[in-house]
C-alpha cells in the first residue's frame, strides 16, 4: 500500500504527457486553420525562410561534412576486413539519405532556430506583446506560428539536400585519400545503390520533422509563464521536446517509408 502511494506521483507523468499532447494538438489545429485564412504575410514567410534556411547553411554544411567524413572512416575500417572498401561510398550515401541527413539536419535546426522561436515568442508572451497583437485584431497564431511552420516545412528538406551532398563529398574525400579507394569504383557503387526513392523518402521525413520542430517550439513559446526565467525554461524545454519528438517520429516514419518506398526492391 505504501509502495503504491510512493508511485502515485509517477503515475501522473503519463497523464501530464497526455494532457500536453492534447493541448499541443489543439494548438496545431488552431494554427493550421488560421494558416489558410487571409491575409497571407508573404514578407514574414520569407523572413523566416531566410532565418531558418539560409542562415542555417553554414552549420549544416559543417556538420554534414564531418558526419560524412567520420562515417566513411568508420565503415572504411570495417569494410577493409572483408576487402569491400569500394562500398564505402554507397553505404555512407544510403545512410545519409535515408536517416542521418534528415535527422541531423532537423536536430541542428532545432538547436539553432527552434530555440530562437521559443525564446522570441516566450519573450513576447511575458511582455504582453502577444496580447497587444490580439487587441490589434491580429491573430498571434497566424502572425507568429504560420510563417515559422511553413518556413520549416520547406527549409528543413532543402537543408537536408545540402547535408546529403556535403556529407557524400566528405566521404569521397576521406575515401579517396585516407582509405585509398579509387575514385571510379567509389562513385560507380554510389550511383548504383542510391535510388531517388531513398533521397525522396528522406526529404519527406525532413518535411515532417520541420513541421514537428516548429510546432513544438512555438507551442513551448506560447506557454511561457513567469518573466525572463520562464523564457529560459521554455527555450530549454522546446529544444528537448522537439529533439525527442523528432527521434520518436523518425522511428514510425521509417517503418512507414521503408514499407512504401523501398519494399519493391527486395
Amino acid at each position, binding site marked *: 500500500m505504501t509502495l503504491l502511494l510512493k508511485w502515485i506521483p509517477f503515475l501522473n507523468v503519463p497523464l501530464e504527457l497526455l494532457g500536453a499532447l492534447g493541448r499541443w494538438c489543439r494548438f496545431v489545429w488552431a494554427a493550421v486553420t488560421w494558416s489558410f485564412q487571409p*491575409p497571407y504575410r508573404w514578407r514574414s514567410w520569407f523572413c523566416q525562410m531566410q532565418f531558418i534556411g539560409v542562415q542555417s547553411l553554414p552549420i549544416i554544411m559543417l556538420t554534414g561534412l564531418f558526419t560524412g567524413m567520420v562515417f566513411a572512416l568508420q565503415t572504411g575500417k570495417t569494410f577493409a576486413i572483408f576487402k569491400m572498401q569500394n562500398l564505402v561510398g554507397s553505404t555512407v550515401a544510403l545512410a545519409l539519405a535515408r536517416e542521418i541527413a534528415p535527422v541531423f539536419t532537423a536536430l541542428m535546426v532545432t538547436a539553432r532556430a527552434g530555440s530562437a522561436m521559443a525564446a*522570441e515568442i516566450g*519573450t*513576447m508572451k511575458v*511582455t*504582453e*506583446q502577444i*496580447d*497587444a497583437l*490580439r*487587441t*490589434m*485584431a*491580429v*491573430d498571434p497564431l497566424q502572425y507568429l506560428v504560420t510563417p515559422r511552420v511553413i518556413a520549416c516545412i520547406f527549409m528543413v528538406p532543402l537543408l537536408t539536400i545540402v547535408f546529403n551532398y556535403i556529407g557524400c563529398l566528405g566521404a569521397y574525400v576521406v575515401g579517396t585519400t585516407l582509405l585509398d579507394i579509387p575514385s571510379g569504383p567509389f562513385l560507380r557503387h554510389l550511383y548504383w545503390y542510391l535510388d531517388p526513392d531513398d533521397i525522396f523518402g528522406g526529404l519527406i521525413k525532413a518535411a515532417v520533422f520541420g513541421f514537428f520542430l516548429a510546432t513544438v517550439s512555438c507551442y513551448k513559446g506560447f506557454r511561457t509563464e513567469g518573466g525572463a526565467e520562464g523564457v529560459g525554461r521554455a527555450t530549454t524545454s522546446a529544444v528537448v521536446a522537439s529533439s525527442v519528438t523528432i527521434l520518436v517520429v523518425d522511428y514510425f516514419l521509417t517503418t512507414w517509408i521503408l514499407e512504401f518506398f523501398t519494399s519493391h526492391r527486395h
Partner: protein
Amino acid sequence: MIEITDLHKSFNGNAVLQGLNLSIPDGKITVIIGPSGCGKTVLLRHMIGLLQPDRGRVMVDRVNLSALDRVQMNAFRGRFGMLFQQAALFDSMNVFENVAFPLREHTQKTDGEIQKIVAEKLALVGLTGTETKMPSELSGGMRKRVGLARAIALQPKIILYDEPTTGLDPIMTEAIDNLILETQRKMNVTSVVISHDIPSSFRIADQISMVYKGRIVESGTAEAFRNSKHEAVQEFIRKGEGKG
C-alpha cells in the same frame, strides 16, 4: 456602453474579482482606481476579451463578448485601442513600425499616408523624430507614449488605458492627461483609464470608480466620489491627495 455584471475571476484559487458590477457610459472618460494588485488590469482585460469571466457577463455595445467566436472577436476588436501597463511595444520593430503596425494590418493606406499619420500621432504624444529608435533605446515613459500613439492610430471608438501616467514626470503626466481629454473630445471616444494619480483623476474623469476587494465600492462623478462615505475611498483620496 460597457456593462459588466456580476464578474467573477480567480487565478489558481486566488479570487481576484468577486461579483463586480460596473457600467461605463459612451463618450465619457471613466477612471478606475484602486490599490495595487486589486485586479484593475484583470478588469480591463475582460473588457477587450483577453480574459474570459469565470462567472458573469461583459457586454460591449450590447454584445456579449463571451458569445463571440474568434473571427467575430477579431472583427469586434476593431473598435478598441489599448495601452498596456508596460506599453507592450514589439521589440523587433522600431518606433515607426510599431505605430504603423495597425495601419498596415487593417488599412490599404499607401506608405506616404502611413508616414504622415505616424508622424502626426507621434507629434501628439510629443515624440517627433524618434521614428527610427528601437524600443530598447527608450525610457519607460517614452515607451508608454509610443504605445499610446499605436493605440490611437486607427481612431478606435473605445480606448483602454492601463496606467498611462504611472512613472511619468508631472509635466508629461499633464500632457498625457490633456491628450486623453483632447482625444475624447475630438473623436468622442469612450475612454477607460486606470490610474493611481488622484488629482489627475479628478481633473479628467466624468466618472470615477473604485475597485476594492474584488468589487466596485464607489462609482460616480468626481464630486460624488469625493463625498463618498466609504472608508476605503476616503483613505485612498486622503493618501492620494497628500502625495499629488
